[in-house]
Every structure is written in structure tokens, then in C-alpha cells.
């Protein structure tokens, strides 16, 4: 069986920063596993600017931010990158099985860093009554479709939830010629950054309905309309406030949930509510020598902070390998 000092699962911003920092701290033998055919993770679909102000003191797009790390990773001799490599099993003693085209590989690591990111919360995770037509997408999936695949999901959209991805997608769809009719937010305030409300909604005249919810989604095969209603402080519908918005597309932007199936599989403690590792310190897990960083550890607002903390994860793994703690 292949043996490695350190295996990093996930080649997004967290995994790349962790691998680079571990390499800089003296770890000689690092395997970085990425399921996609490119490094960069979610940054590859975040084509808007706003990244890197802390880290690089300039405003970059997601792909540019990723590219700076990809270039460093590929020229670091201690890091071997394996693309299209999907980890299917992780044990508590750090044996990893992963699929890559044509092969099931096994590797024994001395230390593991999980940088597996988040999934999007879906319609099923927030109760929205109505039918189940096509045309309902998690906002990040729509982002990937538009920015990386070149598919436009529909003509008229309503966005549920005012998280940053939803706000950024409102602007993207408006630029792509779609009519964005509204962003519906059940809270009293936007969940996204104030600057995203300004530059993504206000710039394009897209209304933001705070303290409102989607009461129903309607449509037979395809979304035809949503029914919107105002809510009170307990998030209960206020009678007599319903109105309809016709649309063929609904984007769901109601937050992210860390992806930690591998950690669970290894027997580490995972918080049921947040899906984050249970540990005393950021980046650690309940298994010694196994670390989690980036959005798999906690949901971050800024990639700059992911990089900063994930570098610490790389250093922690290096320390563990050196001193066994």
C-alpha cells in the first residue's frame, strides 16, 4: 500500500493553503486529492471580484485567487496532486481509499487534513410548500451552470434567501439578461454583506423583501410562480399579505452545511446541528493527527480567512508529524 506522511483531501483554497503550509513547515511527502479535474474548488465558479483584499492587498476574482495558489502548489516538489480522485473511505487509523479514473487506490497516511468544504442547503432543508416542478436550483449550482458551463437556467427568477451567493447570482442573472424579480428574506436583515446588497441588488433595481417568505412554489412541470407573504417576528405568515410573482426559476440561497461524511466515517465526533467537527480548537478533530480546515471546519465569509486558518492546519499537521502532538 502507498504510504504518505500527509494526505490532504480537497484541492480548494483550504486544501491548497494547508498543503503549502505543511510543505513549508518541512513535511516532505504530501498527497493532495481533488475530485474535480482542476484545483481551485468553489473559487473556480466565483468569477466576481472581491477576493484577496486581506491576503494580497488587491481585489481579485475567485479564479485569479485560486490560480495564485495552484501555481505555488504545482511548483512545490513535496506536494503530489492527484486530480479526479474521489475519496470514498477514511478509517480512524488514517487509511484512505479513493477512486480515480480506472483505479481504486489505497493509501496509508500518518496525518490527514480534510478540506472538503461545504454543500448547499437545499429546498428540502427549509419547508416550502407547493409542487415539485423543475426550475428550482441551489444558488451555487446555478452559479456553476452559468459561469462554468454556459447554461442560462431560465428567463425570470426569484431568489429565496439573501446569502451572498444568492445576491451575487441576482447580479449575474441580471447581467445575463434574465429578469430577476425579487430576493425574499425571512429575516429582518440581509444575510449577505451590505456591499453585496448595494452592488448586486441596488445597482440592478432588484427588490429585496425582508421579513418575507415563500408561502408556495407553484407549477406543473416547470415553475410557474411563487406566492410570497410577509412574516411576523416569530416568522409566522401575516394574514392578508400574500402576493404572487410569476417566474420560471427559483434559486435557493439559504446557507451552507459543512461536508464531513469522511470524518464521521472515521469515527470522529461531528456536531449534529452544524455538521462541524467537535474539537477544542479550530482545525482540530476528535482524532489525533486528523485535521479539518476551511469550510469543512466552519462556514467562512471570506476566502482570505480560509487561507489564513488553513495554513495553521498545515502547520499543525507538520507539528503532529514531528512531535506526535
Amino acid at each position: 500500500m502507498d504510504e504518505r506522511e500527509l494526505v490532504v483531501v480537497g484541492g480548494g483554497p483550504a486544501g491548497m493553503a494547508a498543503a503549502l503550509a505543511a510543505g513549508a513547515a518541512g513535511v516532505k511527502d504530501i498527497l493532495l486529492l481533488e475530485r474535480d479535474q482542476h484545483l481551485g474548488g468553489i473559487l473556480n465558479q466565483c468569477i466576481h471580484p472581491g477576493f484577496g483584499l486581506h491576503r494580497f492587498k488587491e481585489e481579485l476574482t475567485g479564479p485569479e485567487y485560486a490560480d495564485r495558489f495552484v501555481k505555488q502548489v504545482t511548483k512545490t516538489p513535496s506536494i503530489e496532486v492527484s486530480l479526479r480522485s474521489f475519496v470514498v473511505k477514511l478509517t480512524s487509523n488514517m487509511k484512505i481509499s479513493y477512486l480515480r479514473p480506472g483505479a481504486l487506490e489505497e493509501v496509508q497516511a500518518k496525518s490527514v487534513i480534510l478540506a472538503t468544504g461545504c454543500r448547499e442547503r437545499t429546498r428540502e432543508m427549509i419547508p416550502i410548500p407547493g409542487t415539485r416542478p423543475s426550475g428550482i436550483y441551489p444558488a451555487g449550482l446555478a452559479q456553476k451552470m452559468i459561469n462554468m458551463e454556459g447554461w442560462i437556467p431560465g428567463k425570470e427568477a426569484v431568489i429565496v434567501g439573501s446569502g451572498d451567493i444568492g445576491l451575487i447570482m441576482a447580479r449575474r442573472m441580471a447581467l445575463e439578461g434574465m429578469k430577476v424579480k425579487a430576493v425574499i428574506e425571512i429575516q429582518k436583515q440581509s444575510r449577505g454583506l451590505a456591499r453585496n446588497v448595494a452592488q448586486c441588488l441596488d445597482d440592478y433595481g432588484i427588490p429585496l423583501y425582508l421579513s418575507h417568505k415563500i408561502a408556495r412554489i407553484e407549477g406543473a412541470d416547470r415553475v410557474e410562480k411563487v406566492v410570497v407573504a410577509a412574516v411576523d417576528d416569530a416568522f409566522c405568515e401575516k394574514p392578508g399579505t400574500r402576493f404572487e410573482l410569476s417566474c420560471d426559476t427559483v434559486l435557493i440561497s439559504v446557507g451552507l452545511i459543512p461536508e464531513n461524511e469522511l470524518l464521521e466515517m472515521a469515527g470522529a465526533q461531528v456536531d449534529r446541528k452544524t455538521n462541524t467537527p467537535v474539537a477544542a480548537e479550530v482545525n482540530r478533530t476528535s482524532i489525533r493527527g486528523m485535521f479539518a480546515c476551511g469550510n469543512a471546519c466552519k462556514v467562512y465569509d471570506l476566502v482570505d480567512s480560509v487561507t489564513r486558518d488553513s495554513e495553521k492546519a498545515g502547520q499543525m499537521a507538520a507539528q503532529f508529524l514531528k512531535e506526535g502532538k
Partner: protein
Amino acid sequence: MSRKLICIECPQGCSLEVALEGNKVVSVTGNTCPRGDKYARSEIENPVRTFTSSVLAEELDIKMLPVRTSGPIPKAGLLPAMREVKKILVSAPVETGAVLAENFMGTGVNLVACRPANKPPME
């Protein structure tokens, strides 16, 4: 007269208050760094944004190539810029920062690639 703005220069999103005389900015308050002052003046007198999109690629290892303007362009130019980039097809490998359109739409800034695109790997 005054106008309220949210600064978009960084994630902090300061609330700015701009005192105006006609269309001229007299003073900016609420900003916590010089970028806020600069943003507010620009936003009133000549609003600009960095334009980003993605353009079609063919026979490369990605389907769409993300692109940006190398600097901000007038806000009113964003939708025309979208129409313009729909005409672009990238079929040769590029490096990050490669110029796809010089002096893009007469804005004085270039349209550049945000990542590399290479020939697809041999199977």
C-alpha cells in the same frame, strides 16, 4: 443635500454619508479608510465597476473562460460589455492575465483572462 451610500470597496461595507452641492461632492463621512472617500466621490460623479464574466472556450480543458476588465469601467457600460463578450470565442491556450481585448470597448482598460486554459489532457 446629502446621499447615503454603502461602500463596496471591501467586505466591511461602511455606511457613507455624502454631502453634495448640486452634483459636486463637498464631503464624505462614515468611511473608515481613504478608499471609502474615493469610492463615494467616484460613485456620485462617475460610477464605475469592475466587469467580470465568462466567455466561451472550445477545444480547451474548460468550457468557459472567466474574464475581467483590468480596471473599473463606467457602470453604464456593464450591459453593453455583456453583449460584447458573447462574441468572443477562445480556442487557443491562454495564461492568467492574457489580454483578450485591448482597450476593451474604448474604456482604456483591457479584457483579460482570470485563469489559464490549456489543451485538454489526452485520455
